[in-house]
């Protein structure tokens, strides 16, 4: 029998790939299993927005660190993911949105995001493409986007250079605990490793079940639309107070319209179906914000699956009761924050003290012994800081 790997990771999205990268660079013999191609689920089909204005308040400190990582991806990742750092605006068109925006921008500002409330005139100076009817805007200088479709290619090269045994097109069918580690089941037989990270995005629920643990993971089916390449119509990232718009134009001219409007699909079939009304609603919102977009043609639309825990905070940390097993995922706006949170988990796996606290899942497990006050666990949702590990 061959010597076991130091670390096996199941799931090659942004989380799994980043953990693999940092652990391998620190000298661990690392194997990464991906059912399909690297970063082709949520981590390759997302809107690529790196914005504080859609990030959950509790994650702002993480997102700021992660933003800095994205902005310097060429240095630490070594490859280009098309990152553009620019201003971001969140708009209010109605009185209700003015209130929502003021409250939300305030909370995010308290959490450390450099967000200022500005008048419509000031917003238009930042983004000349804005339409009429803006009552108030939140302006954040730390904003921007990456080209999500380049993530797989960039990480692919980085992982190979770091010596990771990258196994694409290799679905894992289960994991067994055994003396000194884990046996990861693949069609080509079991692969042994001393440590295990489950990083399966919306499929974490199934993966946890391999270990006999029930962890409900909600599946969001986010729709995106993209126009053909057009002459410049905007230069910033634009959203609205409710967080239901994310809009920017890439240097090559396409405009990506997102904001989490829901399509149909599930874990088994993927994001198979777009809902025309919600696609149209999302595009109307986009054209209301940036009217010049009306002249573009819709070229493509799709849906991808995003994972959410019961309290909408991440699942990132050791798996309770199973030594040397870890989980990493369900991070809201996880493309933005993912690299940082996954790097924290890598620090933990490497025996270091993570620079910021992780998000252990004890709070989410329905074990009768562990959680006498489930309401307390659910109540930690929004602004409360997670505990140290």
């Amino acid at each position, binding site marked *: 029998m061959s010597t076991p790997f130091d670390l096996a990771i199941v799931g090659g999205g942004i989380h799994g790939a980043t953990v693999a990268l940092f652990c391998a660079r620190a000298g661990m013999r690392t194997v990464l299993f991906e059912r399909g*191609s690297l970063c*082709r689920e949520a981590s*390759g089909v997302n809107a690529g927005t790196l914005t504080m204005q*859609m990030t*959950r*308040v509790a994650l702002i400190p993480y997102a700021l660190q992660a933003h800095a990582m994205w902005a310097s991806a060429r240095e630490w990742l070594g490859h280009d993911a098309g990152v553009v750092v620019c201003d971001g605006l969140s708009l209010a*068109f*109605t009185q209700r949105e003015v209130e929502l925006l003021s409250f*939300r921008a305030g*909370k995010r500002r308290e959490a450390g995001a450099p967000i200022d409330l500005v008048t419509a005139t000031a917003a238009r100076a930042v983004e000349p493409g804005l339409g009429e*009817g803006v009552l108030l805007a939140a302006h954040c200088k730390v904003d921007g986007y990456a080209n999500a*479709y380049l993530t*797989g*290619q960039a990480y*692919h*090269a980085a992982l*190979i250079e770091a010596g990771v045994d990258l196994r*694409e097109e290799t679905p894992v069918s289960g994991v067994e605990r055994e003396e000194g580690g884990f046996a990861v089941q693949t069609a080509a037989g079991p692969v042994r490793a001393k440590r295990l990270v489950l990083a399966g995005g919306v499929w974490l629920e199934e993966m946890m079940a391999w270990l006999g643990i029930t962890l409900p993971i909600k599946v969001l089916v986010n729709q995106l639309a993209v*126009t*053909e*390449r057009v002459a410049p119509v905007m230069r910033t990232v634009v959203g*609205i*107070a*409710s*967080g*239901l718009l994310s809009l920017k134009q890439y240097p*090559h001219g396409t405009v990506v319209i997102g904001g*989490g*409007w*829901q399509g*149909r699909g599930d874990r088994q079939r993927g994001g*198979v*179906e*777009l*809902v*025309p*009304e*919600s*696609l149209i*609603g999302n*595009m*109307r*919102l986009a*054209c*209301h914000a940036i009217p010049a*977009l*009306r*002249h*573009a*043609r*819709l*070229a*493509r*639309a*799709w849906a991808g699956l995003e994972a959410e825990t019961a309290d*909408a905070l991440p699942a990132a940390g050791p798996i309770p009761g199973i030594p040397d097993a870890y989980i990493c995922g369900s991070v*809201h706006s996880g493309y933005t924050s993912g690299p940082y949170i996954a790097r924290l988990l890598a620090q933990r796996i490497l025996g270091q003290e993570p620079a910021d606290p992780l998000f252990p899942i004890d709070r989410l497990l329905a074990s009768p012994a562990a959680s006498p006050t489930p309401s307390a666990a659910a109540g930690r*949702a*929004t*602004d409360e800081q997670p505990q140290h590990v």
Partner: protein
Amino acid sequence: MMQADLIVIGAGPAGAAAALAASEAGLLVVLLDEDASPGGQVYRAPPAGLSVAPDTRGADERAGDALREAVAASAVVWKGGARVWSISGAFRVDAVTAAGSESFTAPRLVAATGAHERLVPFPGWTTPGVIGLAAATILLKSQGMVPGRRTVVAGCGPLLAAVAAKIVAGGGAVAAIIDLSGPGDWLKALPAMASRPDLLRQGLGWALKLGAACVPVLFRHTVTAVSGGEACEAVTVAPVDAEGRPTGGRSRVFAADALAIGHGLVPGSEIPKLLRAEHRFEPEAGGWAPVRDAFGRCSVAGLYTVGDGAAVAGAEPARLSGRLAGLAAAQDAGRLPAHVSAREAGEARAALDKALVFAGAINRLMRARPAMVEEIAKDTVICRCEDVRRGEIEAAISAGAREINQLKHFTRCGMGPCQGRMCGETAATLLARHVGSREAAGYWTGRPPLRPVPLADLLGEFDYGDIPVPNPAPL
């Protein structure tokens, strides 16, 4: 939203026949096409106001008029000028029409959207003045226009002669016909072609017309370059072997301001792909084709696919396969007694089997020649929407792209408005060389919109208050 028993998308010979058969059996049928009138590619009607001189009206024009009269006289609900952009559920169809976006729904759907053109790139293929061979038929039919003053007609299959003859009839000059096939290939096809004396006669008519006009024909030749920069000025051609690979023989240059070129047809099965129906790589059908039974039923319940969108075979097989699907839809809906449907279907089936003999011979002439793709130069553009060159595709494959959607992510190839209709065949053939087969390379995942649509047309006029903005995301 209009509710029907059956929605048919595409009003070429296939879709029209399906709609008529189902409607005669009593189904409420909606027939949609982005064109203003029924007819499809082969029987495309000239636009209103353009009259076609009576002496240029041939069999196709008469068949097209008959098809349009049949649809008009039937109970089929005809929706022309309706560009279908979205299909969801089982089945909701959204189309951009003069009225904005209109929706239709039915428990059954026939996809009859026809074929696309295959075009293997060469230096200069994106020069203005270079158009597809099949596209040239549209120009000639629907606009009564010749592609240029002096046109080279190149590629393979019977469209070569059809286009060249129409150019001559339309008053244009044909500099040369450049045929990938050799005289021997055509001779081999003759016995099967004799099964359709009408079409054989039509073909001979074209040949005579071209002979009378002294148009040179170069067999076993291909276009290797177009020069001219801003506009086509000259077309260079060279001899090739049976697989389309240059033999190194002497090349020749023809002065021309237009080139009509096409290397066969590929089934346009975007709808079955969008609805995640099972597909199979069928070279004899033109490429990836939806898996279907003898009546066009796909692996998705209630979905039928017929005509060149299911398997490239030409107008008559398209009509017959459409009729079979229309009958099947009526029977599946419980509206056509089994014995009636069996009799009618039996007749259509027998006629289809006969027609497929001819189609098989034509398809061999129009078959893909992967060797031509191998020959593409490193700096030749493959994806013209996104300017992706062969060298970038090879680099992405070296970087680890193993499947066509991953290749798309690595290069943007296929991400533009045509959604890979133009570059898909070439990109997949290049990838297949490295991963072993077209099956391993896979096909682009189906995505809406089925056709690029201007946002202004799709969204119409609206007030901010009308937008159904969902509840705010968690803070």
